[in-house]
């Protein structure tokens, strides 16, 4: 008896604590909901930013950007993280939508393509303003919805090609390279590699010696690169990595093999370590999607519509789903990206679509 009561008591006290906490958060709600007319007082707008986790620099900078925007309009961003767990993401969204949704603005990074439809459906029913980024099924379009304002993503083919070109330039347009691919069944990995293939078609002197997957992971990239270096030896003049984490792993491998500085390395994402590596000359190039901007812009678009400064009907069709501008970072401009910060003018209602690079087709 003694033994069974202890865990029971523990569980009860835990759930009690959880209930109290939940009570606290729900107080934030307040007034009644009457969805429809879109003119909220600025102070009534509720800003929510949701990403996978705060344990990688990119998503941490995303949330920091959201905070910066919220602060600029005198509000506070609610930060949600779901640990890359689709179920958890949906639970968080339905919890948020169960509260007061009248002036709710959500800037969401869906875990995968399949996670977007239920989020869109929930937001639509609740009349909450939603901006999604990166992942959505091709046939689901914001233009068909009232409160799903925009979907922002980046052209992986373009970035894969940009760094491919930068790499072949760095090795003088001639020689062998190896490629580290991401998780093979993701769109990002496929597009970026397609970009490399396009670049190789253009730069005929460059030869792809080998391509392996390192699953976007720094540790795996280290092992795979070491193996490929023993396989191809001095023929490897450059390393193309589908993200910066793998590029940084490759840099470690080069150092351990005593080849630091002799092989050019490129990546994508512009994580802080990679930017400083580019600045220091150990890495050749990376591509930035500007995570702080992503974190702010979704909230800014929603805020502008919620406060009536921007009308949903007035948003051009091409701006409802678009590729945003991305930046190739080389040694010449790395210093600008070394300290990521938001530019308040990017988030002004007239400028929120300034970075549209092309419609998402």
């Amino acid at each position, binding site marked *: 008896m003694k033994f069974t009561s202890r865990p029971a008591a523990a569980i009860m006290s835990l759930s009690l604590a959880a209930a109290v906490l939940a009570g606290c958060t729900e107080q934030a709600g307040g007034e009644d909901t009457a969805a429809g007319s879109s003119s909220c007082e600025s102070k009534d707008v509720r800003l929510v930013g949701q990403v996978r986790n705060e*344990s990688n620099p990119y998503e941490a900078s995303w949330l920091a950007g959201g905070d910066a925007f919220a602060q600029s309009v005198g509000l506070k961003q609610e930060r949600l993280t779901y640990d890359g767990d689709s179920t958890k993401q949906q639970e968080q969204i339905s919890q948020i939508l169960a509260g007061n949704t009248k002036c709710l603005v959500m800037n969401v990074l869906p875990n995968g393509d399949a996670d977007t439809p239920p989020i869109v459906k929930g937001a639509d029913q609740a009349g909450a303003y939603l901006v999604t980024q990166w992942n959505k099924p091709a046939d689901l379009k914001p233009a068909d919805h009232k409160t799903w304002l925009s979907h922002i993503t980046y052209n992986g083919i373009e970035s894969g090609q940009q760094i491919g070109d930068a790499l072949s330039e760095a090795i003088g347009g001639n020689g062998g390279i190896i490629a580290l691919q991401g998780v093979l069944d993701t769109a990002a990995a496929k597009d970026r590699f397609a970009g490399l293939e396009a670049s190789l078609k253009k730069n005929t002197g460059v030869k792809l010696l*080998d391509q*392996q997957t390192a699953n976007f992971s720094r540790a795996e990239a280290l092992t795979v690169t070491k193996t490929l270096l023993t396989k191809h030896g001095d023929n490897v003049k450059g390393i193309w990595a589908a993200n910066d984490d793998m590029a940084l792993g490759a840099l*470690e491998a080069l150092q351990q093999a005593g080849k630091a500085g002799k092989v050019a390395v490129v990546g994508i994402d512009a994580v802080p370590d990679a930017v400083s590596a580019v600045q220091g000359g150990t890495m050749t190039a990376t591509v930035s999607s500007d995570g702080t901007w992503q974190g702010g812009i979704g909230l800014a678009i929603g805020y502008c519509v919620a406060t009536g400064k921007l009308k949903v009907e007035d948003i051009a069709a091409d701006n409802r789903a678009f590729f945003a501008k991305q930046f190739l970072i080389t040694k010449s401009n790395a210093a600008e990206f070394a300290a990521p910060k938001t530019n308040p003018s990017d988030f002004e209602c007239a400028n929120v679509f300034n970075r549209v690079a092309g419609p998402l087709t």
Partner: protein
Amino acid sequence: MTNEVVAAPRRSSRRGASFRDAGPPVALVVIFAVFAALSPQFRSVENVQNIVDAAAVLAVVTCGITFVLMMGSIDLSAAGVMGASALTVSLLVANNRNDNDFGLLGILVAVLLGCAFGCLSGLALVLLKVPSFMATLGVSAVGLGVATLMFAGVQPNITDAMLESWAVERFLGFSYLTWIAVACIVVGWLIQRYTRLGRYAFAIGGAEEVLTLSGVKVKPYKVAVFTLAGAFYGLGGVMVTSQLGAGLVQAGDGYDFSAITAAVVGGTLLTGGRGGILHSAVGVVLVMVLTNGLVQVGVSPYWQGGVEGLIVVAAVAAAVIPQRRRNQVVK
């Protein structure tokens, strides 16, 4: 490839202890020979060094997990404990986030943190009666949480010369990390062979009831085994940090299952009471030879995962066929 693998254990008799243990080493030799025949780069000295170096971290983690498996429990906490220890060590030695420069002391603290997490798993198991599967999964989540808190949005890069040199400097052709792993295997083997902790871990896995009936208090030993395992994971986290030059929350990603795979491939049973450190060491090398060899012979990355899985299943099957009669591994 499969027919060579199953050839080895077929001649093992019901009793012969040496035959029973011969499966994994024979599988290792066969797989190595096949790759060596297929690829001249694979059999180069440089690549053998590369394989052994790459196996270092997995070997240390597997040392820890082996003790838990011998006891018949399971431990899924490696990923979280390694993450927490990686962040801890990277923030305590010279780094770009703060002015700490504790050197060896920082490494010691990280290993002790690993011990603490292991102890937590053990206590949850014996005091709260949480099955080890759940207890360690929970501890892993706690470890990742602690690591994320310490991470705080900025990656700590280490500048500590000693810790960085572990992955780069070489002694007799192998990196310092490899020698650390070898030391761990030796220490692990000594603990397993000559201390009460090691002997009881075996006995708990073999027949816990008998041990309890003969008056041995098993609970403290269970906690001690988990604590020991935690120390190995903590050291593993430190080693990953040395390799990557940075403290990553994801430092231990995948190591929990790779280590269990390596231990089982090497002949340590999930039911406990069989196997040991040396078996697991063979398993680790076997797994590393496999991942390296598939790249060296040029198997397409789209096929590798599947092919690797098939070979692992075949190797385990080869290792356990002699033990099937014992009615222990078929569940």
